[in-house]
């Protein structure tokens, strides 16, 4: 078990900043998801942690050992890390048992002990009786479990999971995700889970680090990330949030404030350091919007279109006086509003995005 400390890590590919001053602290035994769209630098970060690439600035420590600095680079062979690769990377010329035993053989573990541990690892992933099979003869989910058993048999201090569910069928994903969660609970290993799927990250992780364009945007618990995004990108990326300009009129001491949203008064949540300002931006969720009578207080919008999503509609509207400001919400079946119908929306909640720190 070990802490992982990533401090101001920068990685350049030519002039391109694949990682730009990234700092993340992962606690011992924590399940940390690293979430971001493809190309955000999350795989580059994983390769830095594993030691496959050298960094250009900053420091990575596993436990108390600095494994990557500009001057010093511990090769991957010596980092005592386990990785489950996206492609599983099972060796096709070896049986399941040989795949799992490889790390033990390398470490010089001899046979009764080695066989016992391989057997135990296979039992743990519920693959007893598969020891002599070849990877090619296994299903996707079984291959995934072999990869997991192979990674854990050497009891690594830190386990990196690189989009481990991306290659599985949808119906298998939930089951495997459960398996990871149980696994983490049982072993207590520090786990870093790379994914672009926020539902997966939300379901599994203790905390989530959101990355975009090589930068770390926010590290927070799943609920905090959803309720209190640190900036507009996170607000837009997580949970399909709407980012709108608001005027913060008055800040109350309890982390709430009074705002004006296109002339509509809304009570919103904010940080304790929030100041009154006319150019703030707020993040709204679809669930924060409610259709009310046209005469009731609220924001007057017009329907742009309704998209059927199976059981409900995603309703897209724009604010009547500001056609560039779009709002979306869900409406249950049956739903029969023609485009351009007027709709009055009551905003019940919102989060004022903290202003960027003054540079």
């Amino acid at each position, binding site marked *: 078990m070990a802490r992982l400390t990533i401090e101001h890590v920068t990685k350049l590919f030519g002039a391109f900043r694949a990682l730009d001053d990234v700092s993340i602290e992962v606690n011992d035994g924590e399940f940390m998801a690293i979430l971001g769209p493809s190309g955000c630098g999350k795989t580059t970060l994983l390769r830095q942690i*594993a030691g*496959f690439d050298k960094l250009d600035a900053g420091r990575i420590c596993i436990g108390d*050992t600095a494994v990557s600095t500009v001057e*010093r*680079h*511990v*090769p*991957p*062979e*010596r*980092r*005592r*890390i*386990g*990785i489950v*690769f*996206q*492609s599983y*990377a*099972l*060796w*096709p*010329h070896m049986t399941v048992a040989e795949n799992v035993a*490889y*790390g033990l053989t*390398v*470490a010089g573990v001899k046979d009764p002990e080695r066989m016992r541990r391989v057997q135990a690892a296979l039992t743990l992933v519920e693959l007893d009786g598969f020891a002599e099979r070849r990877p090619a003869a296994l299903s996707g989910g079984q291959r995934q479990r072999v990869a997991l058993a*192979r990674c854990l048999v*050497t009891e690594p201090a830190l386990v990196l999971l690189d989009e481990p569910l991306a290659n599985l069928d949808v119906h298998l994903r939930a089951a495997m995700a459960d398996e990871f969660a149980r696994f983490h609970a049982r072993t207590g290993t520090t786990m870093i889970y790379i994914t672009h799927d926020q539902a997966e990250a939300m379901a599994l992780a203790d905390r989530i680090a959101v990355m975009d364009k090589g930068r770390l945007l926010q590290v927070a618990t799943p609920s905090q990330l959803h309720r209190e995004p640190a900036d507009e990108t996170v607000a837009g990326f997580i949970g399909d949030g709407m980012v709108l300009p608001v005027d913060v009129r008055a800040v109350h001491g309890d982390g709430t404030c009074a705002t004006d949203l296109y002339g509509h008064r809304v009570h919103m949540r904010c940080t304790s350091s929030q100041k009154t300002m006319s150019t703030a931006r707020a993040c709204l969720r679809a669930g924060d919007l409610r259709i009310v009578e046209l005469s009731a207080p609220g924001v007057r919008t017009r329907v742009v279109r309704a998209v059927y999503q199976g059981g409900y509609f995603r309703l897209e509207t724009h604010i009547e006086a500001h056609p560039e400001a779009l709002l979306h919400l869900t409406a249950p079946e049956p739903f029969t509003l023609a485009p351009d119908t007027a709709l009055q929306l009551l905003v019940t909640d919102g989060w004022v995005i903290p202003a960027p720190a003054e540079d």
Partner: protein
Amino acid sequence: MTDATGGRERVEDLTLLWGLVGVVAVLSVLPLARLLLEGIAPNGQFSTAALTRVLSSPTTWTATRHSLVTAFGGTIVAVAIGAVVAALIALTDIRGRNAFVFCFVLPLMIAPQVVALAWLQLFGPSSTLLKMIGLAPAMGSPNPLYSAEGIIALLGVQYAPLVFLTLRAGLRTLPQELVEAGLAAGASPFTIVRTIVVPLMTPPLVAGIALCFVSCLGNFGIPAFLGIPANYLVLPTLIYQRLAGLGPSVLSEVAVLSVVIGSIAVLGIYLQDLMLRRRDFRITSTSNPIRPFELVRWRLPVEIALWTLTVVVLMLPLIALLLTSLVPALGVPLTASTATLANYDYVLFEHAAAKRAFVNSFGLSATAAVIIVVITVPLAYFLVWRRSRLLRVLNLTAEMPYALPGVVLAIAAILVFLKPLPLLGVSLYNTIWIILFCYIARFLVLGLRPVISGYYQLDRTLEEAAQITGARLLRRLRTIILPLVAPVATAGALLIFLTAFNELTVSALLWSSGAETLGVVVFSFQQGGDSTYAAALAMLTVAVTIALMVSTLFTTGKLAQGVLPWRG
């Protein structure tokens, strides 16, 4: 550096990397540099005497002219045959494709000197075959193949498969959509071939032409068998005659001749590069290969034409060779009572040099193949996955011993190894080891190319998964990477074995008593007038070659696709 930061891993990496750099440098840079040095500074002293003497000799320019005439002529014949056959095989719906490809590619795998010998048995006054059917010309009339035209025709036949293979590989990458878009626009198949297929196939065609030209230029076996009797000398045979007649004393002169022929080859490769650089031929999409055009009522005639070509080019000469190997002496007609296996008995069990040659050729080819695999697996690892800059530069020089004519490498090797090796004090010249060195240097690329493409098809995480468990480089190479690239490496090794087994160009210049190869013995039998022994020995090498090629057809799955040219 303390051990915790991976001192041992670094040492292992660097030792292997620099070891490979050293090996590649010794195999390619050292001999070629030594050859160039000899050209300007014979025996270590700067002098233009040898250079002037060779370049002012009319013999040099006659041979150069002959080389260019036969190389261009052979290329034209090869391209005409190879391109038409490639188009028919890749684009149309003819039947029995795999069997045809096997037969058509066969001349490439059979030694040029054997092809030459077979054709000589087909024509001429003493042709056993022609005698049997009563068509043999009168005794004393010259064999029509002993001429420039003969050399050109045989070079064309020998290297048509080269053009065929490069073009077919190109046609396989031609996306279906490009052709279908043309069809959808209303173009006829013929218009599509003319306006879409041919323009896009320019790179493989140009590459095939260049490859074919350089191969024709460097060919020794065909001009040696057909040109020397007619005193029609090309540069490789001129070099051979000088060296065989006068020994190492003329090394400086033949070094200059080697530089001349090497320069022509380099010029050819450079022109190819220049032509391809001027336009953008990149094919953007990848998809299924094109669906064959239906020949309908032309299918049968085309099939008959193709098989007729195979029979004329391959079967008839081989039958002529076989018949000659069965007569007691040249000129004796073959009948039930004259037919004999005595020639085989003689070369297999009586003639000492022939017996030795079997052992030598088998040993040299197998050893070279194994050593090349041992070199190329880690070499390709550093080239493809580690992207070592130093090795990438060396990779280009590693191509040279193969791209350049074989005589160039042979002369360079003599220059390097004539003097005793430093420290050891023994000279490799006049031993079998100098031939082994040349085989490894020359055929390294044959093994390297498939292994490199093998690495490109492998998922590197397979290696990283082993690395992360703590396995160091040598262990990963042995337990993970070698098993994964084994199919391509084996296929490459087989190609090396067959090529080396049938080789003559290098060994003709480097053999010594006790270190004869099969090619050398066939050559000396023929030169000594023992055509029946030559035919018997040549038939045996053909049998071994075909047997090995056929055996690969039954190992589907074990050997990688796309490495062995005769497998569809």
